């Protein structure tokens, strides 16, 4: 049986039960924020949240996910508003961006249990590989997200998606409202 919950929606995959969760998410559900990097559980780019645990989705079959609750980067927040997403933006963490969803998912599980982790706890929880070299900013960004979670800091570093042109024009003087433009 391959029935479980992905991002709060019940799903049943008509795929080989041995299919790793990663490929069901990516190729059947089109949840492409979860990345393929190695297929051997080493890089962590495919990290998702399963029942509150950070799990490398290339290492779990959909048969083993039966009845469980899977959360991917797409459902971490509706508006990039998760403290980790805001902290990653504020600290200018991401470079190529390929490892970032896995990093954020792994860190989100850590912070849910412990919003004030030590360096050692962060190092133990984040074993994901990044080749661009975001590491020097990573502990700081995770700690900052922790401070946001604890209510000690507020930031608005990355805007939510889906702002209407009208709303943008109200905020940014340089923008006009496309609706009132004369026709060509």
């Amino acid at each position, binding site marked *: 049986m391959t029935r479980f919950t992905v991002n709060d929606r019940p799903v049943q995959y008509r795929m080989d039960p041995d299919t790793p969760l990663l490929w069901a998410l990516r190729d059947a559900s089109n949840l492409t924020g979860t990345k393929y990097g190695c*297929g051997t559980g080493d890089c962590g780019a495919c990290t998702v949240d399963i029942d509150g645990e950070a799990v490398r989705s290339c290492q779990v079959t959909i048969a083993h996910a039966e009845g469980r609750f899977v959360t991917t980067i797409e459902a971490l927040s509706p508006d990039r508003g998760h403290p980790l997403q805001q902290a990653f933006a504020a600290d200018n963490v991401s470079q190529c961006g390929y490892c970032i969803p896995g990093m954020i998912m792994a860190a989100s599980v850590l912070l849910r249990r412990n919003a004030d982790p030590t360096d050692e706890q962060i190092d133990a929880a984040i074993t994901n590989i990044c080749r661009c070299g975001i590491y020097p900013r990573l502990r700081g960004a995770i700690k900052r997200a922790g401070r946001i979670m604890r209510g000690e800091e507020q930031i608005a570093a990355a805007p939510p998606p889906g702002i209407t042109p009208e709303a943008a024009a109200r905020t940014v003087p340089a*923008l006009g409202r496309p609706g009132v433009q004369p026709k060509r």
Partner: protein
Amino acid sequence: MARAPRKQSDRNRGLSRRTLLVGGGAAAGLLIAWGVWPRSYAPNLNAGPTETIVNAFLKIDRSGQIIVIVPQTEMGQGVTTVLPQILADELGADWRTVAVQSAPISPLYANDLLARQWLANDWTRMLGDAGDWAIGQYATRSALMLTGGGTSVPMFHDAYRDAGAAARVLLCKAAAARWGVAWESCDIQEGLISDGGQRRMKIGDVIGDAARHVLPPILPYRQGQDGRLSGQDLPRLDTPSKIDGSHNFAADIRLPDMVFASIRQGPIGDAVLAGLDDRAAGGVTGFLKLVKQERWVAAVASNWWAANKALDLADPVFTLRGAPVSSNAIDDTLEAAFAGSSGQRLYAQGELGPVFEGATILASEYQVDAGLHLALEPPCATARVTEEGAEIWMATQAPGQAREAIANALGLPGEAVTLYPLHAGGSFGRAMDWDVGVQAALIARDMGRPVQLQWSRLEDVIQDRPSAPAHARMAAKLGRNGAIEGWLAKVAAPCALTQTWSRVADGALPHAAAQQAADASTRLAVAGMAPPYAIPNWAVDHYPADVGLPLGFMRGNAHMHGTFFTESFIDELAHLANIEAMSFRIQMLGGNPRLAHCLSTAAALGGWQGGIAGSGQGIAAHMLDGAYAAVMVEAGMEGDRLAVGRIVAAVDAGDQVNPDIARQQIEGGLIFGLAYATGASVRYAGGLPTRAILGRMNLPLLADIGEVSVEMIRSTADPAGVTDLVAPLVAPAIANALYSWTGQRIRSLPLVGTP
């Protein structure tokens, strides 16, 4: 923050300054060249109904949105933020209104700076400016749009500045005409045009008129420092989509009716498909078809895992012609190259002969293994091929060459192939090769429906085109006062860049490209080995070879091995001369104050104790295309494990447009260099790597990273590229640190050995 006005550089005299720009007319946009040549390369940009093409680098929407066109491939280095920032600064835009769009393939976007670095040879150098011009012409006419080597900002800085300035003048003229004032009194700040007094107008309100105005013969640049965007740590434009998983890499493209493919290409070398078990794959749920070519086989299925499993079951067999590559053979070939007839002296100053004659010569031998890219995103491309033409979604550092190769493979004219350039998930030079795009197109044609081809990590490791393995024989004569009187570097290495060019531009097969380059002695293989130190007599020799392992473009390229040799050997000489390693270097840097300043800064910030025995401190310095850097590390062995506790870098890379992005690149370069020092390589045997699992490549994890500090030295010099600058420095700095920790000199990379 006040900033000194930058002097106008003349680096891009000629083509790129003149190709500038004036968009005339409506959205279709006619480009009138601003000089004699090229007379007319019309921009082939598309524009929406409300967009005006201002010039090849800029569209403006009536709503006021500033759409900057960028030909360079975003691989994480921030180029899709930095180039728009240059334009927006000169235009006077509000950063919140700036968007970025990939450039179509056009001669207007040729990177002739990288072309010159790559293609210059003894002949073109002999021709001087004429040779430069010839390469520039070639680059432009063949639309050599290339990304790499940290050339993006040095190449395009002036073009984006001019593009912004041209747009500002046209907009000011359009607004001035409406107001009935002189355009010279107008200015633009935060996206609003002012008449010099109280009146304000939005850019979008007059952009339709702007195209009717003409540019003055001399383009004025913005004066004043108020509200300038250059030099600010503006937020990266690619951040929002990268933190919520919505950023589309090649593997994230979804097309109607699309299916998924995996591929096997056999062992390294001249391998052809010999056979496979056709029937075994049939039982896999979702399996659709095996697509066979001479040198590879792909399986196609309704999801990638099924495709890859089908390939495992089909168990393809390849016939390898020629000797299978092995690490032992690589080492033997490189040693033998020193005795070969193809070696050449490529750099020389003074006369080494008399200095070395009868003197005591200090000599050391070094070696480095091939370095793997291991970008986190394995090669991937998505393709749709119909009767009319082909569409390819992929990340490529050479889009013009990729499109041509795909068109050739499909038997289509180049214009029939549309290449959608995507951001790369790392790359580090890997995306200079376009194989995956060609393969995806061929599979898609065979299937008659869209196909996404994803290489497995295993395939990526086997078929990587790593940086060159190299051996060096270093020799020097020390004078009595510790001065180096003679310095000779002999390097045996295949030239990775020569091979890459044969593959990417001429379509040579990887093993054939490696063979063709076997006798070609070239400066590209020893780039960066001219010592920055004042040494009266020195020479650099290159001994080419074909080691049977196809090699490729890499972050740092030949600097990765060259700097390890140079900065390790300098350190050895310092210890032999009994002079503290930083002072030893600085006494030879009287003519290079920027590098000397980097060294003293890194030493001061790092608490340099002179590299005395037991300190575990090591230092190294390097300069690269107008950028200077020094790195100090503290390292030691914890059991049999290397521990790097601190890395301190001091960098002078000119007046950076976005200092925090430059800092990101320096930090990233340090981590990339750390991986190169400790791993990111494999042994080879029987034509295959001996292991291919990412977790066994000794790549650094967060827990391996101690304190990393980067000091950006303030400078008013032109901004230099920073992506390649510091990565080569980490390995020699660690080796030098280990010497001070253990008294043992490690002369090979990776430093800790690969299992």
